[in-house]
């Protein structure tokens, strides 16, 4: 592993959501700058929240670090703290190099200035003397392929032209660290591939990258290591493979949590599930055990036993227990129902147990809601149901290291079918 280039120690940043309070806090913070105070723990003030909390990581020479997180997770704030654009509330950023370049979609270009002026600005900002720039500029303009427009203001450029200009400028710089904030996402496929190939060469020659992107295939193709940020905290840090898998799981859980807050069923479905006779309520579902049989935890493609336990105060022949797996409001995925005709179940007074085995669970990792019930097969009426008007059971399907599963996650498939290829 190369030399250490960057480390952060307990890096934290607080922000305020209320504009009036934020203005007051800004003034207070500026005033604090004039006071010589020993380092102390800063607490949240009224209306504030931790945008980043206790961020610790390192970057070594020759390493590409991916930064993943949904919108608002704190990625851009972290970049701003790393670049010293804003001040940390607590903790420290330590750079062991001066040679750092940030690339983002805006790229700090000035739309009122011409392309040529912007080249001069960018390069002079990175310490190149006018003489050197004059030497380089023809090559840059030629490489950008927009020489006909180089003396018109940047505001008239299309996004693609701007990117080509930015790219040709940055390829001239040889920093120790490139911080790339979502810059790869814009531009056509050809441009993206050109940029990615430039970065690969740069990495091979010993450069380091911090790459922020929503497009995980870019992170996977470039980065060795990843950080996942969620609500201002690092929730996973490690190999890209593990981190991306963790990220998908997190995203799915988030999506499901959001959908769980919505009503699960429409009125019609509710009526269908709770079509009752006077016997409804005489049977009570106590528990649903979901037990992995050939793995340690419930996981995609694994063998799983479902055991439904209920307490009945009536005796009933020919009943059918059912298990409905749903994913949020609109996704009713599958129903498993006990045999109706050839092997009917019967219900005895007291505790009854019904079980079934799924050989290869076809569900993607995530949290699922399970509605269970028992039907009278003769009258077709529902004797009991759990999860419609009360809380459903939750099944947590875990992810694991598996190439097909990871591909399914990248492609965001709904099901995971564990197939045997000959």
């Amino acid at each position: 592993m190369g030399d250490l280039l960057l480390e952060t120690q307990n890096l934290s940043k607080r922000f305020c959501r209320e504009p009036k309070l934020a203005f007051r806090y800004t003034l207070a913070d500026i005033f604090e700058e004039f006071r010589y105070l020993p380092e102390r723990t800063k607490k949240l003030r009224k209306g504030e929240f931790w945008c980043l909390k206790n961020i610790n990581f390192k970057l070594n020479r020759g390493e590409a670090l991916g930064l993943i997180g949904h919108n608002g997770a704190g990625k851009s704030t972290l970049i701003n703290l790393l670049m010293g654009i804003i001040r940390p509330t607590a903790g420290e950023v330590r750079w062991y190099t001066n040679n750092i370049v940030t690339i983002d979609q805006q790229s700090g270009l000035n739309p009122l200035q011409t392309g040529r002026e912007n080249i001069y600005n960018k390069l002079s900002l990175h310490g190149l003397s006018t003489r050197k720039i004059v030497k380089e500029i023809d090559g840059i303009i030629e490489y950008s392929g927009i020489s006909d427009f180089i003396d018109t203001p940047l505001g008239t450029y299309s996004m693609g032209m701007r990117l080509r200009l930015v790219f040709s400028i940055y390829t001239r710089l040889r920093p120790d660290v490139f911080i790339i904030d979502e810059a790869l996402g814009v531009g056509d496929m050809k441009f993206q591939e050109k940029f990615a190939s430039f970065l690969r060469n740069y990495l091979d020659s010993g450069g380091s990258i911090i790459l922020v992107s929503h497009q995980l295939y870019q992170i996977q193709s470039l980065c060795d290591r990843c950080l996942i940020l969620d609500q201002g905290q690092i929730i996973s840090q490690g190999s890209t493979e593990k981190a991306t898998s963790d990220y998908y799981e997190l995203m799915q859980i988030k999506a499901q949590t959001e959908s769980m807050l919505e009503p699960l069923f429409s009125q019609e479905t509710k009526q269908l599930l709770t079509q009752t006779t006077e016997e409804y309520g005489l049977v009570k579902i106590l528990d649903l055990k979901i037990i992995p049989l050939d793995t340690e935890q419930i996981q995609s493609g694994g063998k799983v036993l479902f055991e439904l336990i209920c307490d009945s105060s009536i005796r009933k022949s020919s009943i059918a227990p059912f298990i409905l797996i749903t994913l949020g409001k609109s996704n009713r995925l599958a129903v498993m129902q006990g045999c109706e005709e050839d092997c009917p179940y019967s219900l005895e007074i007291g505790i009854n147990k019904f079980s079934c085995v799924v050989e290869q669970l076809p569900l993607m990792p995530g949290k699922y809601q399970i509605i269970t019930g028992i039907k009278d097969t003769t009258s077709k009426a529902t004797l009991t149901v759990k999860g419609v008007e009360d809380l459903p059971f939750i099944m947590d399907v875990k992810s694991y290291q598996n190439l097909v599963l990871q591909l399914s996650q990248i492609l965001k498939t709904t099901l995971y079918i564990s197939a045997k290829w000959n």
Partner: protein
Amino acid sequence: MNSSENDKTNICPSIVYSSGSQLFPLKVFLKTARKDVIQGLPFTKQLLIQNVVKRYRYSSLGLFWAFIPSALIAILLTLGQRTGIAGLTSQNVPPQVYGIFGIVMMQIFLESFNSQRIFLTYYLHLSVRQKIPLEAFILAGFGENIFNLFMRLPVLIAVLIFFDITPQLTIILMPFGFLLLILFASSLGLLLAPWNALSNDLDSIMQVLPWFLFGITPVFFMPRDGTLLHRLFVYNPLTHIFEAIRWLTYGGEIDHPLIFCLITLMTIFLFVVGWLYCKLCLPYVVERTLN
């Protein structure tokens, strides 16, 4: 952590961003400020050239604007002199010369003041995602103001020739007087720049401030001794700078040389304080934009 990693972390970092005050230790803060000035010089140069070019690129009348206000003022003051307005006729030079000098100095003062007052707001979009030395913007603004001064000097010389005024030998020092004026205006602008970027209050104040300043500065005339207005004029530091520039150009009397020297020292001090104050405030101003 293994021992080799320990060794690496023991190397002194090149850059540290911590939660402690930027101001302390003061030596480090000043060292960083000095380094930023040096590092920002190539960019300052680019920015200055481009700003000057941009001004003439988007202005169809170009240099015409440097002359036209002075010509209009000369016409107005000639009318005033003919009408016999008291004060206009009591100077040792024709009121047109006094007035044109006054108006040019006031223009330079307000331009320099405003360019530094708004620089944080104006360049904030560039500083949001890139670490750009603040000094580059300040110095580019300062350079542009000096450029404006040199654009106006021919007007002043033309006025002296037109009204047949023999300049003093000290006229060679006159640009330094103007430089002090620009520096004084820039200092005030810099001290107000963070406030300007954080709230809109200053814009409303700026609607009134120039008029108020015209009232207490010897732009067109100097009130007689012993009057309340004269006392107000004396309390205004601009009065002393204006009078010193006039004295350097065409002689006359300078009432308070000691105050002028004090103002000179204060101006240099204020400029440095204003610059460092903006530097201190920048991260917080950017933070407010992000929120």
